[in-house]
């Protein structure tokens, strides 16, 4: 016998369900007057430093059907590669950039969309640089525990090839599931929950 390890257990997850919008995006679903605006709706303002981009996509189920009730959150560094977080110890992030956004999939088309900026690179724990990326968290009816993934940028070929996380993907033909498609300043990125095109999801 040994001394007990007295750690608590993390509260188990449950699905966000089909009405997640009531709690997280009330104005979006027609509950007006409780909060002035939905949290995470806007990430940038007129003073935000960096190159403006839009990021949009759909989340697609095992039959190829887009989810119309999903909620997507993104978290990213500012243009200089700094996070707007108390745990960021390398410097002070752009105060005009939240780094965090939250959007619903469109109830008809399933399309979600963020207006943000291109993130700078951030280091891996061993000091190597990670390629610029945006962290993504997805919840929806039928998803029991929120899914984590990342979005990388297609023009950063060399940085992506050297990225410590992308390099860990054993099946190289799955790497493109984490790389957005570019059309000028607009990036699109579909996330496939299952099947041959299944997106790489992360255990972080």
């Amino acid at each position, binding site marked *: 016998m040994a001394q007990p390890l007295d750690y608590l257990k993390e509260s188990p997850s449950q699905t966000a369900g089909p009405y997640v919008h009531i709690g997280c995006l009330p104005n979006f679903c027609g509950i007006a007057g409780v909060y002035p605006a939905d949290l995470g709706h806007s990430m940038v303002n007129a003073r935000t430093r960096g190159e403006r981009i839009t990021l949009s996509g759909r989340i697609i189920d095992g039959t190829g059907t887009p989810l119309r009730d999903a909620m997507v959150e993104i978290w990213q560094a500012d243009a200089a590669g700094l996070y707007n977080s108390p745990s960021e110890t390398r410097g002070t992030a752009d105060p005009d950039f939240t780094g965090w956004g939250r959007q619903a999939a469109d109830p008809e088309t399933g399309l979600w969309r963020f207006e943000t900026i291109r993130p700078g690179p951030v280091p891996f724990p*061993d000091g190597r640089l990670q390629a610029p990326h945006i962290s993504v968290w997805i919840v929806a009816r039928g998803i029991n525990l929120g899914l984590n993934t990342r979005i990388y940028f297609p023009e950063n070929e060399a940085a992506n090839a050297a990225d410590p996380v992308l390099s860990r993907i054993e099946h190289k033909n799955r790497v493109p599931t984490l790389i957005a498609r570019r059309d000028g300043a607009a990036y699109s990125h579909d996330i496939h929950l299952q099947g041959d095109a299944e997106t790489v999801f992360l255990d972080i």
Partner: protein
Amino acid sequence: MSNDAPETGAFFARDREWHPKPLTPGYKTSVLRSPQKALLSFDNTISEITGPTFGHSMLGELDNDLIHNFARNGESAIGERIVVHGRLLDERGRGVAGALLEFWQANAGGRYRHKRDGYLAPLDPNFGGCGRTVTDERGFYAFRTVRPGPYPWPNGPNEWRPAHIHFSVFGHGFAQRLITQMYFEGDPLIARCPIVRTINDPAAICQLTAALDMNATVPMDALAYKFDIVLRGRRSTLFENRLEGN
């Protein structure tokens, strides 16, 4: 927020046997919405260790009072008035200060204020169903609401959700992000629910079941339920061979 220096350690690995698995066929929608390939594991980087924080200053006066935050002047929501309170902790037992909690629920009759909810139980004109708060410097939180009713849902032919309140929880790092549901002590629908039963371990289901807390009631006003929430703990950075910064 406390005056302690922000913590920068990686989070304890998630116990994915304790959490529900992605594919839980008793909950039918999970069948086509569950990844089939293995997750890619790696130790937290600064992208996962950091996360957004929200100050008390963003809160409106009634944000933690669902009885009144959607009600007309001088009126209030119909139902069993309750206080829900508890503490946000991490796996080391430390209070998580300054963390945003968001909650949403059906009204006393089990009806959600949402276009997609077609249940015949009526809306309450004085109940919206959303609220939020930020934990204090020791991780405590509280809000007032009415106890939600159970409601039927199209999974099996006669399936009813137990009374529940949904919780969205932010810690200090994006890897702590969590959504879960709170159930009520003694509800006989808990054991029958396919969403509850996506969790295998009975002890994990107990962790989502709030206890009636007579010590926290407001006499002649509201009953109370206590619901503590635990987020992932952080490793110490004392002995990590991390190259801080660039």
